[in-house]
């Protein structure tokens, strides 16, 4: 398979790129530039340059293996083209059937940083106990120490959360304005009901 961007064998940068490929194909989680540099015993800047080479080679449409920057590091994943085939063979236990309650709880933990079950219940207006337990079991949130005042356990999102949602870091979460789409929906349903009444 000759490709225009093929890396020239023997070139030290090419060798570094191959080392990075090797590290990423066996890694259990995304690797940061520093982790890659330490393992490859090379400089972080050179690792960054080599990562660009790797990224050109492993991109959507070119390869079944795709390099992505996610959860504070770099990782290989399957190409989107192969999603159907992957879905036939693999489950997605972390994100399958996430309920609205779980998503709201996840949003609160992601945006407000470490927070406890009482914090979450206060915002959602309903108990967060089962949603929190469910998210912990899925590995999307994890315990992060205890609240100083009340001693309640606090939770934060995990690197898996960033990976599932395709985020480089939590700072990639969008800013939120005050207009609630959900409120809008409820209003629409109410209007629809009212119109039916008067019709």
């Amino acid at each position, binding site marked *: 398979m000759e490709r225009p961007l093929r890396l020239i064998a023997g070139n030290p940068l090419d060798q570094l790129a191959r080392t990075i490929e090797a590290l990423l194909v066996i890694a259990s989680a995304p690797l940061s530039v520093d982790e890659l540099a330490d393992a490859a015993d090379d400089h972080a800047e050179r690792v960054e340059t080599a990562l660009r080479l790797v990224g050109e080679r492993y991109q959507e449409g070119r390869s079944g293996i795709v390099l992505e920057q996610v959860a504070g590091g770099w990782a290989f994943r399957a190409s989107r083209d192969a999603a159907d085939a992957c879905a036939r063979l693999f489950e997605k236990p972390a994100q399958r059937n996430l309920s609205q309650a779980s998503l709201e709880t996840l*949003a609160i933990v992601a945006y407000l940083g470490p927070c406890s079950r009482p914090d979450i219940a206060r915002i959602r207006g309903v108990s967060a106990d089962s949603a929190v337990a469910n998210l912990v079991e899925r590995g999307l949130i994890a315990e992060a120490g205890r609240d100083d005042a009340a001693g309640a356990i606090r939770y934060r999102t995990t690197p898996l959360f960033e990976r599932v949602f*395709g985020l480089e870091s939590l700072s990639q979460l969008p800013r939120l304005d005050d207009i*609630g789409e959900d409120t809008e929906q409820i209003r629409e349903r109410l209007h629809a009901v009212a119109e039916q009444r008067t019709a």
Partner: protein
Amino acid sequence: MIVRELELDLDAFEGPFDLLLTLVLKDELELREIDVAGIVLSFLERLAERETLDLEACGEFLVLISALLELKARGLFPEEAAELAELEPEAAAEELARRLAEYRRMKDAAGWLRERLETEGDRFFRLGPAPLAPKLETPLAPQQPERLAQVLRLLAVEPKQVSLAHMALRFPPVTQFLERFRAVLRRRSRFDFDGEVAQLSRVEQAVAFLALLELRRSGEIVIDQAAPFAPIRVARTGEEKIDRDERTVGWNVRSA
């Protein structure tokens, strides 16, 4: 239209309203898990399907849903209910608006996450080690025993002192009022609910009201109220001469 047969499809509960009430009353379902707005919407949608406005169903529903809402609010925010009560009405409204805005933002964020799941759902990646990767040994760093003592001390720290107002807002069990009303009805064939609970706190009154609904549901009593906000009169089943128009028949005969 029979309110208690209203079919609900909520996150925490699926089934008829009647069953939801029963489960809440028996403490088998946490009221705080229930999305009351979802119940209201279901009711309105059902109402809209009908040609005439069912005033009786509306009244019954309003009473029921208000009792549920008040119980839920006080159960969720025992301390804050007291805090809010101390605020001037304007400040309290502002505080509630702030919380509502915060909740809306989080609903938005949840919506964004849901969309993101859809657009990113075709990204598959491996969880855990690669098949031919070296086995990862992660020996534990040497630990200081003092850390064990520290975490236990933290576990033994009493949480922030709760106010007495909070204690006052704790809920008596519904069964307490079930027993009480049954005892009253063994002595008398009928009584005036408002008079019976006049000396109680608002929370106790709300719980007492739920007990009343439960007694009616189980067919032990009939209830009559001449007009909205008029005193609620309670009678043993079989003594229901006050129940001339049988407006409560749906609640005492049909209970399963």
